[in-house]
């Protein structure tokens, strides 16, 4: 989905609030959220792709204003309701207030047809593909040319795995893109390497 989570290359953001040795956690509840969602994954209540997608499904204004662990919590609560672990009413009764949840999911999809196999050095292009469900193709590489650098192990296809759809694991390719191709005349010069699932790629001639 072309959601607000897909931040790479978006303009209008500010100076990084950076400090050497900055902490991962700022409050005790953040540690508990981190453990509780990990526990749910460990117990098979949901998988990491479902977890990531439920974060992406937060209404955009909530996503932007929530902290990292609040987004994590919203995903955990949404999935526990969707999976029938608890009802929203029970959560709101226990929490003594409104419990914001993510928007419903669009359907998933299985692997795309006619997958091609690539070798290091191959010129590829990211398909001009739009999909309302979970996808791990950042918008900034859509339709863009790149060069295959290497192949990674096979992973569950996120577009299926986040939605309970059957699919085979896919290779991902480390593809190098030039910022000159991604944002012509509007970026610092660099190579951007992205792990791209086979289904998202086609050969560039």
């Amino acid at each position, binding site marked *: 989905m072309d959601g607000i989570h897909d931040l*790479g290359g978006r303009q209008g953001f500010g100076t*990084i609030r950076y*400090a*050497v040795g900055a902490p991962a956690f700022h409050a005790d509840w953040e540690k508990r959220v981190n453990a509780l969602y990990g526990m749910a994954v460990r117990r098979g209540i949901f998988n990491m792709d479902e977890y990531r997608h439920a974060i992406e499904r937060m209404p955009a204004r909530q996503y932007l204003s929530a902290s*990292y662990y609040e987004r994590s919590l919203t995903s*955990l609560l949404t999935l526990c309701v969707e999976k029938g672990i608890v009802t929203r009413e029970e959560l709101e009764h226990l929490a003594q207030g409104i419990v914001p949840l993510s928007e419903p999911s669009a359907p998933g999809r299985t692997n795309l047809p006619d997958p091609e196999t690539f070798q290091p050095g191959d010129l590829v292009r990211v398909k001009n593909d739009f999909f309302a469900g979970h996808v791990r193709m950042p918008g900034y590489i859509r339709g863009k040319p790149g060069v295959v650098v290497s192949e990674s*192990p096979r992973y569950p296809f996120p577009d299926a795995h986040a939605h309970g759809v059957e699919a085979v694991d896919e290779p991902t390719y480390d593809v190098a893109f030039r910022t000159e191709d991604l944002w012509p005349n509007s970026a610092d010069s660099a*190579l951007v390497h992205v792990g791209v699932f086979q289904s998202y790629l086609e050969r560039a001639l």
Partner: protein
Amino acid sequence: MNTQSRPSQVAPIENRVAAIEAVFEQRGMEPKPFIETMTHAAEQEWVPRNGARVVAKAWTDLAFRQRLFANGKDAVAELGLSMPAHHRHLVALENTDTIHNVIVCTLCSCTAFTIIGLPPDWYKDLDYRARVVRESRTVLREMGLDLPPEIEIRVWDTTADTRYMVIPVQPPETIGWPEEKLIDIVTKESMIGVARL
């Protein structure tokens, strides 16, 4: 419950966390010991010193360095370091005098957290995620790393479950130091790639 009895205010975040913890407790999932174990791991086991050991070893042991670049996950296992099952691959990125690597996750905030430690707050902020792929040199300069123009930048966006760590250039004045002493100079920031040593 009908709509009239629904609450009108958003529950404080601590209440929402306590609610799901109570649900897990009621379902017999025993969340408390799990939280303790997980928090201990996050604070005591998944520490940047793990990655620092990998870097120091790569600086001092050429054969290990080659194994690390060939198969990172197997190589760190030699040091007793493990990664979650869904992290199927670890790629070590070699900084040189002419190449600088930096990692990000633009879509969420993925990292090799068991090796380099849980990501710091700024890594998970929207500003870093949005900007570093497009304005890498500018962002690094803002963060205190002013790279000379002859150093080429490579940004690694963690979109699949392959994980990355940066192997910084060894400072020349530390050549010949024992591994234990080298471990102490390697920072989390240098393994993310927002600092050089």
